[in-house]
C-alpha cells in the first residue's frame, strides 16, 4: 500500500475523479491520452480571466503588464522545470504535435537536403513520424527507422554508433517513453552518442515530462517537446525546448504580430528570442495554467511521481499477466505506467466499452502507433495508463472487470 501514498495525499486535489460513471466510481486509466487537472490549475485559469486578462507584450496598462508578467513567468517556470539554462530556449506551442511540426518545418527546411538521413524509431507516435515523412519528401532527405523487436519493444541502441558512422544522419528524433509499449528509452546515452557524431536530437517527452525528472542539460538533447494536457496542465498549450544556439538562427514558423522587429510593405525582419516563434496572440491562460501545473508537480516531486508510476505499471503488468489469453506489450520490468494489452480474441473496442460500464476509463485503438501495431500483427490494443492519483485497488478493479469481460465475450 506504500505507493498509494501519493494518491492518498493528492487524489483529492482532482475534482473530476470524484464522480460515478455508469453507477460505479470513476477509475481513470487513460492518462497517456490526457491527464486530469488539480483544482489549483483550474482555479488559477479562472482567476487569470477574472482578474488579470489582457493581451500581452504590446501593452503598457496595468492588466496588460500583469498578463505579460504572468506569461513570461510561465516561460521561466517551464525553463526551470526542464532545467534549461535560459528562458529564451522555451517556446510555447499548442502541444507536442505542433512542437515537432515546428522543428520539422523550420529546422528541417534549412538543414536537410538530398542524401541526408532523418533517423527515428519504429515506436514513434504519428506526431513524431508523419512530420518527418513530410520533411523528407519536401527536402529530398531519407527517413530511416531504428527497428523495434518483439512485443517487448526492444531497440538495440548499441547499433546507433554504427548507424551514425555509416551514413549522413542529420537528426535523430525519438520518444522518451513509448505511449503504447510503456518502455523507457535511455535518452542521455543516446543523446551523448548523437552529439559525439554531430547528430541533432529531438526528444518526444510527451509521456515523460510530467512523470519523471526531465532535465535538458542532463539529457543533452537539442530539442525536447511536451504537451501541457499530459501533465496536469490546460489543453492547447505545450512547450518546445530548443538549444539556444540552434534557435538563434532558426527561421520562424508562423508569421504575424509579436514576432517581427520591423515590417514594410516589401519585407519583414524577425525578433530574436522565443517570440520569433510565437506569432499572434498566444494562449496566455494556457501558459499561466501550465506554470501552475508544473509547480504543482514539482511540489509533489517528480522522483516520487516516477516511483509511483513505475510501481503501478509493474503491478498492473503482474496482475494482468495472470489473466488467461493475456498478451501485454512492452518490457516486463523497467517500464512506465502504461500497459497496452490484447485479451484473448476480444477486440479492444469491445473491452474498453465493457470496462466503461463499470466506470473504468481506458483507451482502445492503435494509439497513433499504427505502423508499430501492424508490425506486431495487431489492429488495436486496450491500454491502461496510470498517474500518481491512481491506486492499487483500481488495478484490482480493472483485473476483476477483465475477468468478467473474458466470461462475457466467452474467450
Amino acid at each position, binding site marked *: 500500500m506504500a505507493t498509494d501514498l501519493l494518491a492518498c495525499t493528492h487524489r483529492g486535489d482532482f475534482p473530476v475523479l470524484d464522480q460515478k460513471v*455508469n453507477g460505479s466510481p470513476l477509475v481513470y486509466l487513460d492518462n497517456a491520452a490526457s491527464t486530469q487537472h488539480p483544482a489549483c490549475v483550474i482555479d488559477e485559469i479562472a482567476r487569470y480571466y477574472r482578474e488579470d486578462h489582457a493581451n500581452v507584450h504590446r501593452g503598457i496598462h496595468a492588466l496588460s503588464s500583469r498578463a505579460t508578467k504572468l506569461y513570461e513567468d510561465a516561460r521561466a517556470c517551464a525553463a526551470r522545470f526542464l532545467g534549461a539554462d535560459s528562458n529564451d530556449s522555451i517556446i510555447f506551442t499548442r502541444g507536442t504535435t505542433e512542437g515537432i511540426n515546428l522543428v520539422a518545418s523550420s529546422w528541417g527546411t534549412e538543414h536537410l537536403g538530398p542524401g541526408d538521413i532523418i533517423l527515428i524509431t519504429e515506436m514513434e507516435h504519428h506526431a513524431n513520424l508523419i512530420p518527418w515523412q513530410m520533411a523528407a519528401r519536401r527536402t529530398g532527405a531519407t527517413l530511416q527507422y531504428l527497428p523495434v523487436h518483439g512485443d517487448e519493444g526492444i531497440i538495440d541502441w548499441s547499433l546507433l554508433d554504427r548507424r551514425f558512422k555509416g551514413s549522413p544522419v542529420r537528426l535523430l528524433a525519438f520518444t522518451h517513453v513509448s505511449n503504447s509499449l510503456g518502455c523507457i528509452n535511455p535518452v542521455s546515452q543516446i543523446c551523448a552518442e548523437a552529439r559525439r557524431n554531430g547528430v541533432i536530437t529531438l526528444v518526444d517527452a510527451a509521456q515523460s515530462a510530467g512523470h519523471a525528472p526531465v532535465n535538458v542539460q542532463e539529457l543533452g538533447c537539442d530539442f525536447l517537446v511536451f504537451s501541457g494536457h499530459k501533465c496536469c496542465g490546460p489543453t492547447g498549450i505545450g512547450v518546445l525546448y530548443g538549444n539556444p544556439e540552434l534557435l538563434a538562427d532558426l527561421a520562424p514558423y508562423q508569421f504575424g504580430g509579436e514576432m517581427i522587429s520591423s515590417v514594410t510593405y516589401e519585407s519583414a525582419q524577425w525578433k530574436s528570442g522565443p517570440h520569433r516563434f510565437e506569432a499572434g496572440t498566444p494562449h496566455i491562460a494556457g501558459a499561466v495554467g501550465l506554470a501552475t501545473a508544473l509547480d504543482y508537480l514539482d511540489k509533489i516531486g517528480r522522483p516520487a511521481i516516477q516511483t509511483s508510476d513505475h510501481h503501478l505499471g509493474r503491478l498492473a503488468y503482474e496482475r494482468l499477466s495472470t489473466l488467461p489469453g493475456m498478451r501485454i506489450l512492452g518490457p516486463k520490468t523497467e517500464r512506465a505506467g502504461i500497459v497496452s494489452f490484447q485479451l484473448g480474441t476480444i*477486440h*479492444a*473496442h469491445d473491452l474498453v*466499452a465493457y470496462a466503461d*460500464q463499470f466506470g473504468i476509463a481506458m483507451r*482502445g485503438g492503435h494509439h497513433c502507433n499504427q505502423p508499430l501495431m501492424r508490425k506486431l500483427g495487431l489492429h*488495436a490494443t486496450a491500454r491502461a495508463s496510470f498517474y500518481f492519483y491512481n491506486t492499487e485497488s483500481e488495478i484490482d478493479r480493472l483485473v476483476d472487470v477483465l475477468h468478467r469481460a473474458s466470461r462475457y*465475450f*466467452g474467450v
Partner: protein
Amino acid sequence: MEIDELYQTIILDHSKRPRNFGELPAPARKGEGYNPSCGDEIAVFVGESSSGTIEQIKFTGQACAICMASTSLMTIQVKGKSIAEALALKRTFIDFLMQEAAPATGLGNLQALGGVKKFPQRLKCATLGWHALEGAFKGRM
C-alpha cells in the same frame, strides 16, 4: 445493465461465429470499409445473379463485436435482394440507429443492434460493413 443492450445474445453469437465469413473469387464485386480511429477493416464480396439480385455474399475482416455482428447479420438480410433494395435497407438501418423513432421495417435480426443508439461512439462500428457493401456495388474486382 446497459451493456447487455449493446451486446445482445445474438450479437455476441454472430461476432464469435460470423456467418458468410470468407472470400468470393472474381468476378464477384468487392468493397472495403476502413475505420481510421481503430484500424478496423471489413471487405464485402458480392456475387450477382443475371437479374441483378445479390446471389452470393461473403465478408472478411478484423473488427469489434458490433462490427462483425452487424456485417454478419447484414449478409443474411440482403441476400436475394436487389441492389436498390439493399441500399434502401442500409438507409433504413442507419436511420434506425440515428433517429429516435425511425421504423425498423425489414431489419429483422438487425434490430438487435438497436443498443448502439445509446453508444453513439459505436455507430461507425455498426455501419462499417454496410459502407463496404455499398463500395462493392461501385467497383468490380
